[in-house]
């Protein structure tokens, strides 16, 4: 499916169903993240239960510590 990911129109693989799959796909599943889908913030538990659909707007911010 195609989604808007952090402002970019992006093709993501068809085996991606849940938000947690996107995090795995981009290898940020073990990081602390804040995810917003279509304007709504998700809790960590909701990452596993929130299904994605074509044309969803996804914002993912992950925390880093460098400086």
């Amino acid at each position, binding site marked *: 499916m195609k989604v808007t990911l*952090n402002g970019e129109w992006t093709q993501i693989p068809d085996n991606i169903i849940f938000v947690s799959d996107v995090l795995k796909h981009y290898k940020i599943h073990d990081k*602390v993240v804040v995810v917003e889908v279509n304007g709504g913030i998700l809790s960590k538990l909701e990452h596993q239960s929130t299904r994605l659909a074509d044309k969803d707007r996804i914002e993912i911010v992950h*925390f*880093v*510590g*460098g*400086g």
Partner: protein
Amino acid sequence: MNNRYSRQELFSPIGKDGQQQISNKHVLIIGVGALGSASAEALVRAGIGKLTIVDRDYVEWSNIQRQQLFTEEHAKNRIPKAIAAKNRLIAINSSVNIEAIIADASALELEDWAKEADLVMDATDNFETRMIINDVSQKVGVPWIYGACVGSYGISYTIIPGKTPCLSCLLETVPLGGLTCDTAGIISPAVNMVVSFQISEALKILVGDMDSLRNKLVSFDLWKNQYSAIQVDKLKKKDCPSCGPQRSYPYLSFENQTKTAVLCGRDSVQIRPSVPMVRDLEALEKILAKQTGAVQRNPYLLSYSENAHRLVIFKDGRALVHGTKDISEAKALYHKYLG
């Protein structure tokens, strides 16, 4: 009187009044590495009244690529970053009162410094110190601006006590053991982008224009051409131990701080992480193999030698830093490679 601030005064949201306010304010910057150098220079050029800079490290060659206040001379002589920065900052603006402190920012000291300041700028390289800054900010009632970067990625958020969620609200767990600038690299535009976000917010706070604050968690990747800004007000937690009504400031208590101990007669410092963790030694070996030092691993521990120091990291997250009795130096090395 010269007209050094004329262009900033012409910018109407600041104006002459704003400039006057800026010149009466005191900002505390924790860390004078890449973010801290850029932040300090921007605030000093903008005419801040007083600036306190705190850092525990000294200048190395690998810093100069992005840490804009430092020169070859500083690296050759291993000048403490706080001192090297202060000298350069005075040359840029002699009217600013600059206080340089060479120290590891502990909870007690941080609270004393923050009480004196109007704003705290985060320029640290680890979450341990950030969680202490976060608690101190809530306790003292002073705003702070989180900023961090790795590779081409950066992130920032402005925390206003009593208004926004705090860092503890946003993080469900403290991210220990992540990538650092010393393991994943860093490019200078990512540093400057984070600092641009931080300083814009700082100027708004310093002139009292709170309505103009961004009020969003912002992140970007300059190499992947991505930008994201999320409204995170909903993440403010009623039961937050740092900013909620039943607050206990957990990161100011001794138990939740990284424990260090100088090992008698061994010229070594032991460092134990603030929360229990399991360190993936195999993954760490791959990361450290890209560094200049030598890595050795057995099933129980990993050893990394560089110059006169040897870091020994155990599976339970504990580390021994050999070749020093100086806790600050040991912690600096620990955070540099282990996050």
